[in-house]
Structure formats: C-alpha cells, structure tokens
C-alpha cells in the first residue's frame, strides 16, 4: 500500500488547507500573544525598569543633598577656622600693643623716678654744699681767729685782710641762702 502511494507523495507540495489553518493559527497567536500577553509582560518590565531607575534617581538626589550639606559644613568649619585664626591674630596684636604700652608707661615712670631722684640728689647736693660752705666758713673763721689771735699785733695790714675775708664769707653765705630758698 505504501509503495503504490509513494508516487503521489510530494513533500514540496503546499497544501492550501494546511496553509490556511496555519495562517489562522498565526493570526490567533498574534492576537492573543503578540497583542495581549507579551505587551502586558513588557509593560511590567518597563514599570520595573522605571521603578528601579526612579530608585536610582532618588538615591542620586539624596547623595547630592548629602554632598551639599557636607560642603556647607566644610565651608562653615573653614570659616570658623579662619575666624579663630583672625581672633588669634588680633589677640596677638593686642598683646603686643599692651606690652608696648606697658613698656612705654614703665619707661615714662622710670624716667619720672629718675628725674625725681636726680632733683632730690641735686637738692641734697645743694644742701650739702651750703652746709659745707657754712662749715668751711666757720672753720676758716676759727682758723683765722686762731691765726689772728696769735699775730694780731702784726699791723693794720693783717686787719684789712681779715675784714675782706669776712666780707667775702658773708657774701658767700648770702648766695648760699638764696640757693636754698630757690
């Protein structure tokens, strides 16, 4: 049976009934799979992609925010550092100024003390001078008296000498007194 039929078998013949049913099958699959099912699956895929993309976007935004805050913080820190340095500088300046001022004051004070001391010394010296001069006067008078006492008889010349000496002494006394008053 097979052998006699084999002559009719033409594998390259396209059977129109099979062709038509094949086309219907493809149409059905196209309608239900390509138009309905696969787009549904793809939609979910896209949604998930969007969700993940959105998540990444959010993470990026948060990161940027954190970066901004960090930057601000760093800026503030730098600013406070700068301010601190400025304060320190200012303090240093102030310190130098204070030290300078104090030194100046001290110098002025020292000068004043020195001046006073000098004046005091001068005054003391004057006083001592005056005193000395008075004592020298009296001593010399005494000395003179003694000399005179011994040789007053030597004549009138000696008397004149003594008188002149005494006069000079008196003048010196006057000027010493004046100096004391001054």
């Amino acid at each position, binding site marked *: 049976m097979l052998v006699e039929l084999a002559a009719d078998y033409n594998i390259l013949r396209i059977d*129109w*009934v099979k*062709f038509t049913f094949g086309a219907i099958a493809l149409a059905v699959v196209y309608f239900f799979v390509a138009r309905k099912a696969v787009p549904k699956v793809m*939609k979910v895929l896209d949604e998930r992609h969007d969700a993940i993309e959105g998540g990444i976007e959010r993470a990026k935004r948060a990161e940027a925010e954190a970066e901004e805050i960090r930057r601000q913080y760093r800026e503030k820190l730098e600013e406070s550092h700068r301010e601190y340095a400025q304060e320190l500088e200012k303090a240093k300046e102030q310190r130098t100024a204070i030290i300078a001022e104090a030194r100046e004051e001290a110098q002025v004070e020292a000068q004043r003390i020195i001046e006073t001391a000098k004046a005091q010394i001068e005054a003391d010296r004057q006083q001592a001078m005056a005193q000395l001069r008075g004592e020298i006067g009296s001593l010399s008078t005494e000395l003179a008296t003694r000399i005179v006492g011994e040789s007053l008889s030597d004549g009138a010349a000696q008397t004149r000498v003594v008188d002149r000496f005494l006069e000079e002494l008196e003048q010196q006394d006057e000027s010493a007194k004046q100096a004391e008053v001054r």
Partner: protein
Amino acid sequence: MSADVRILAAEPGCHLFGDNGCGFEAPTIGMFFPEPWFANIPGSTGIDLYLVLLLVAVGAVLLLWSWFSKKLSLVPGRRQSAGEMLVLFIRDNITRPTMGAKGDNFIPFMTGVFTLILAMNFTGLIPGMLPVNSNLAFTAMFALVIYVMTIVIGVKHQGGWGYFHNKIFPPGMPKWIYVLVTPIEILSVFLIRPVTHALRLFATMFAGSLLLAVFAYGGWYMLNLSAEPLLAAVSVAYSGAALLGYIAFFVFEIAIMLIQAFVFTLLASLYINESLESAH
C-alpha cells in the same frame, strides 16, 4: 514505542531473525502523509493529523502565554520571571542585535512567532507524532507572512520606489558592478530568500523526524523475542543500541527544534530590519 505506530501496525510480525522472510522496511516519506479524516477537499490532502497537532501547538502557546501574563507584579515570582526571561531573550538575542532599539516594537510579534514555531516543532517530540513544521505548507505560510511584511514595511519606510531601488541597486557601489549585483539581488532578495526561509525550517524538521523514525523502526524491527534464545538475546542487544541512538538523536532533535525556531525568527528580524533601514 515511538514514531509512527499506525504504519508499524500495518506490517505485523516482520522482525529480524523472523521466519516469514520479510526484510527491514525503512520508513518512507509516507509517514509525513497521515491518512486524512476528511479527504474530499478539492486540491488538498484533507484534514489530517497535522491540523490536530497544529491545534495542540496553538493551544499550548495560548495556555503558556495566558499563564505567563496573568497576575503580573513589579516583584515577579518564578512563573512571571520565566515569561519575562523569554521576552528578554527575544529582545536581547533577536530584535536588539538585528534591529537595535527601534526593533522593540517587534518584540511581541517575534515572541509570538518564536513560541508558535517552537510549539509546532515540539509536537514531534510526542511519541508517534510529527513536528507540524515537517509539512512545507506551514513553514511557507510563515515565510510568506514575513516576506509580505518586509515589502510592506520597506515601502512604508523608504517609499515604494526607494525600497525597490535600494534593494535592486544597493547604494555605494561602482556603476559597472550593478550589471552583476542587480540580477543577484533580485534573485536573492525576492525569490531565493523567502523560499530558503521556508525550506530551512521544513527540511530540518522533516529530516529530523525521519531520522528518529529510522531508529524507532530499526529498533522495533530488530527486536525479536520469539526467535531462538541466543538470537533473541542478540536482537535485544541490537534493539538496545537502536534505542540508545534514538535517545541521543531525540536530545539532538530538541536542540535542533530550538535552534531552527530561533534561526527562523532571527532571519525574519534581519529581513524586517533591512526594510526599516535604507542602506544595508
């Protein structure tokens, strides 16, 4: 127990070492022409096993995709992941490499074509059945649909004159070479291409199931338990060898069915891309 039981049953008792003197009858192409149930359709072999298997394949595809596409959520389960993997496989291995991102519109169509062709191939894995695509009518239908699509899309994207002009006179060549190129292009693009597109799938399915049938027929023929004990043992050994061959080629055939479905879809995608782009 496989290949065409119906034909085997027609010749009972013909075995190796048998005493009725008949030899081995290899499977013929007759196995691709199952007895029709409604034969009296003019110009046709009628309604036969192929259409039933086609129905099974379409049903399987529809079931698979309705299962894949129900209750979808952003966080997929195993079932949804499998469906998504299939879509992404089509995208990343068929449309994207051939058409790029502009081919994303074709993902659903290509997914449908791929799964339908695959299901129509896989019917051959049912014992005693044939792959639907071992009949040229179905593969020719697919190829014709793709062929018409390429022309329609080409005319739409490049203009009627532009499309045929670009196809027949591929731009960017020295003038004299068109003497050679133009006839070749006309032949290859408009005649050879759709024919090979259909024949490739048909021929691999045809040859594959024929090969499986040979192993099945051979195994069945060589098994003769009613012979003398020694010969029966030998027949069992022969038959076992045939069974091993059958199993090996069965696995091989699964791979071929997958590859051919993939190749057909890939080529369809490639052809459509040539219509989308002006120059290739």
